[in-house]
């Protein structure tokens, strides 16, 4: 293991998409632009996998592959500090893999002005990778914005139905959410007196001198509702189904799959460790909003959806409820479950959004009531979609199960009733998930589908569609069969950062 080299690789992974975007912007001919973009998506993914393989899981508490670059902001206590700990490593891998899948799919999407579309996706990808690799909170936020702004542009320009309204709404919500969380981050910087945005320094400082309870309470509230808006905490979620319904598929894949995790990641890495008492103060509020709002309420709302993409959007919002519940449990088990579920959900929701577009190409509609019987024409597509649905409804064998299981276990200690609500969500998601799969693929072909099929006989998934889907599915299965690939590192990191949260509830049973 050669650490300086890996630190370079980490920098390279973040720089590649950004530099490539710049090169494309400066006007390389299209033919090369496509090749360049493909390489710029592939390289970070390969680097992420290599770093993952070399990550010393036991030392997950410390930032590995670390490097520091001065960017002229040292006067503010800001420098570009990169590194990965046990929580950020899995998410960095998520960003790499979903980015590659979304990129591959975009390359063959035949979008208009493909060059600019790819350019924006690359900027987004660079932002996503940088976001999870930043140890410095300023850059953490900066990279998030770098990824967020192209999202708005892509929804507004390449989006589907209602794209203008959706783009506007997304922009308002996410900007407000981002502003609130930025205010929270800056307030932490000011209040801590550490004169630094460096997370490690802040942690040490605040562990030695915790902030007074009232301050913690207000700061965590800021972060919770700021980050909460970005992750679609009920009732601040309404941008999400609309936005995803309108977003072009690769954008939806990257936003729902990766970018949205920013808020959860922020709560895990910043909120809980730095403001433990604040977190405790808000835990019940969060649990009720997420449990009754996201999981139960929006679970039922998901059942009522007729539009496939809206349904996926709502189901994604519903599953974010589990993540919030894991955070509310204020425990290593729950937080570890959140890490697993963030990765798993990111992969599965990206897969579902991709397949939704593949379905649309064949049926010319997203309306579930007009579909039916597609499996006989496209059995491989049906198999992929069924797998993705089963992953998202938490079937063991896929990564999502482990996240949900750990969260349920952790929640019991918090409140058995909230646990019951959360587990009821598992039944609800089975209802809408299997119903959607059955409506689209099984039973006799619908009239609308027969018409569409007569006009243009639908083919099964081709290899350009299969490749990104396989990539996502294989990762889901790998973590599903071997969750320790994620959980060991996360466990080490969370044990180090969280005990302060609930000094009383670290129950030590012998198993």
């Amino acid at each position: 293991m050669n650490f300086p080299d890996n630190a370079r690789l980490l920098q390279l992974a973040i720089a590649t998409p950004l530099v490539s975007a710049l090169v494309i912007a400066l006007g390389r001919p299209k033919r090369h632009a496509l090749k360049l973009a493909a390489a710029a998506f592939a390289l970070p993914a390969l680097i992420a996998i290599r770093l993952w393989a070399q990550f010393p899981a036991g030392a997950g508490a410390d930032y590995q592959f670390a490097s520091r670059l001065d960017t002229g902001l040292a006067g503010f206590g800001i420098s570009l500090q990169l590194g990965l700990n046990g929580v950020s490593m899995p998410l960095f891998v998520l960003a790499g893999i979903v980015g590659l899948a979304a990129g591959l799919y975009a390359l063959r999407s035949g979008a208009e002005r493909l060059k600019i579309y790819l350019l924006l996706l690359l900027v987004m990808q660079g932002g996503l990778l940088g976001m999870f690799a930043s140890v410095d909170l300023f850059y953490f936020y900066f990279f998030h914005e770098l990824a967020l702004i192209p999202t708005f542009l892509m929804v507004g320009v390449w989006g589907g139905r209602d794209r203008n309204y959706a783009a506007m709404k997304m922009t308002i919500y996410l900007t407000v959410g981002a502003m609130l969380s930025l205010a929270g981050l800056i307030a932490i910087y000011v209040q801590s007196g550490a004169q630094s945005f460096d997370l490690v320094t802040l942690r040490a400082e605040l562990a030695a001198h915790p902030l007074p309870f009232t301050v913690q309470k207000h700061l965590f509230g800021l972060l919770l509702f700021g980050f909460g808006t970005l992750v679609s905490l009920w009732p601040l979620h309404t941008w999400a189904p609309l936005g995803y319904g309108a977003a072009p598929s690769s954008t939806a894949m990257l936003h729902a799959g990766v970018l949205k995790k920013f808020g959860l990641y922020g709560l895990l890495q910043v909120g809980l460790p730095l403001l433990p008492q604040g977190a405790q103060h808000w835990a019940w509020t969060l649990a009720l909003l997420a449990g009754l709002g996201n999981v139960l309420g929006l679970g039922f709302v998901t059942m009522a959806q007729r539009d496939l993409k809206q349904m996926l959007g709502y189901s994604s919002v519903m599953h974010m409820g589990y993540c919030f519940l894991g955070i509310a449990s204020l425990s290593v088990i729950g937080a570890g479950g959140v890490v697993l579920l963030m990765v798993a959900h990111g992969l599965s929701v990206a897969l579902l959004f991709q397949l939704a577009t593949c379905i649309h190409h064949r049926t010319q509609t997203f309306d579930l009531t007009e579909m039916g019987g597609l499996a006989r024409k496209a059995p491989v597509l049906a198999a992929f979609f069924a797998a993705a649905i089963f992953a998202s409804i938490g079937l063991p064998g896929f990564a999502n199960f482990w996240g949900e299981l750990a969260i349920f276990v952790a929640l019991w200690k918090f409140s058995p009733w909230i646990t019951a609500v959360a587990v009821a969500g598992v039944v609800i998601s089975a209802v809408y998930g299997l119903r959607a799969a059955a409506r689209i693929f099984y039973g006799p072909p619908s009239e609308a589908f027969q018409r569409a099929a007569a006009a243009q006989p639908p083919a099964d998934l081709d290899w350009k569609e299969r490749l990104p889907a396989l990539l996502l599915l294989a990762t889901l299965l790998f973590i599903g069969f071997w969750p320790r690939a994620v959980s060991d590192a996360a466990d080490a990191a969370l044990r180090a950062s969280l005990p302060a949260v609930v000094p009383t509830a670290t129950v030590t049973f012998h198993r």
Partner: protein
Amino acid sequence: MSLAQMVLAILLLPLGAAAVIALFLRKQGALASWVSVAAAGAVVALTLPLVFLQAGATGSVEWLRLGSLTVSLGFKLDDLARLMLFVVSFVGFLIHVFSLGYMRNDPARARYFGGLSIFMFSMLGIVLADNLFMLFVFWELVGFSSWLLINHWHERQSAADAAKKAFIVNRVGDFGFLLGIVMCWWLNGTVNLSELDARHIVSAAVPLLLFCGVLGKSAQMPLHVWLPDAMEGPTPVSALIHAATMVAAGIYLLCRVNVLMVPEALNIIASVGTVTAVYAALCAVVQRDIKKILAYSTLSQLGYMVAAFGLGSTHIVLRKVGVVVVDLWASFGVGAAMFHLTTHAFFKALLFLGAGSVIIGCHHEQDIFKLGGLRKKMPLTFATFTIGVLAIIGMPGLAGFFSKDAILYLAMEKSTPIFLALAFTAVLTAFYMVRLWKITFFGEARSAEAKHATENGISMTVPLLVLAILSVVGGYSGVFGRLAGRVADLVPDAEGSAHTTILLVSLGVMSLGAGAAWFFYPAAGTDALEAKSSVVFSFFVALKESFDRVYGYYVAKIQQRFAMVLNFLDNIVLAGFIIRGLAGLVGLLGYGARALHTGNLHAYVYWFLLGTVLLWAFATGFF
């Protein structure tokens, strides 16, 4: 090959087969089927030595660790697991072989056999699991396999609906099951079966929550509704998953967590089992579809097993071994339930495969009133099916007789109401089975399909023969004792006058039911009960449909409407009023922004880049 490697191979061979089929053999149905059969055969080959050498072992690796939570992937091979292992692998293998013939002309054969292999993997995982988390993992996976295989003929709306229903209803049961596991973990700090055996905190909530899982998987009331619909799957699947093995997993689970049981929980379990046994037997009387009759019969027999388990631990006599008084309470229920599970797996698999043979022989005609006269046309199927019928109705000397007697005896000792209910069920069982048998095989052929019926090839008849032999000998201690080890010692055994009483009772109920059916039903094209007593008939039909009606009403009228109302609130109230109000405010700011709204995409991108650079320059103090 070490023991642990053998166990690992048993578990992973079917998974490997399924993976190979899914990745490479989707279009080579013939090859796929042989890969799957070979894997099932290898599992049997590895299982037999384990069973006959009575090899016991445990072992585990850590699967997930977060904070104080550890989930391990381990196996516990004890007498109970070995018995179940034998039942699953042996019956499973026979049904694989039968499927070679049954699914010969199916275009999606590869998917079918891949599904069978996935099922074997999942089911064997349940059998071997050494802790409840792992058991739950495989529990969900058998639910998935069940979905996959019921959905096999997915072009049919009914098959797609049945698959969905099966999975969702099971999930409802698993809601409680999972909560029970989590609660058990927090109470005891472990869900490892051996550790729970050694030490656990007494609680009524844990076993009752775990029992919710059994309600779903073993299709007990009120979650039984999915099993009759599941007959939409290919018949070998009905035999394997929905009769012999998966639905019995609930009973196996109960026996696995036997130590956690408390009297209150057992009383509830016994009642649920008894009610299911009677109810399903009543429903079976008015069915016309050969598979549906067998499905209700399965429900009823599962109720028998659940009742037997629930009975076992109430006030049973303690046994003395030397000077030590051994507390064997609950264990008689385990013995009786597992005994009946085993014999039922043999004869019900036989009956389903026999039905499959009839269905193939008669070109997919499943209405018994349109069959008839198959006795001569399908002699081997007739002979083996007859053995199956005799076994299930409790003909002395056959497997079902012994296991049913054990349960009746236990019931007689423990609870008169349950005894009477189960005896009544036995009358009904003999009644509907003889009805099915007579109408299908006797008289004249009543349709073109039945007229041209022919016996099937050896891949289908050999499994029938083997299962017929097991249905005869499976109840003798020389066979069952060998398979079950110490579990066989727990089978309640009537002695002295009780022995005579129970023998007379079971002979009585059998002859009553069988005789009544034989004389009541002519081998004709109409249902005699419907013709002679339409009130009784329609009462039974209404009884059967009542649950589906209630659930149908709930799904369509309550759940969906509730969802629509919430959706309306979400869209109109939240997204509409509140958010548009905010948007109006922001809209004012939009006036300024509109100046930059040139509609040129490049402009947006460059504005964005320029803004970033400006911000940066400002922050670094460039200005």
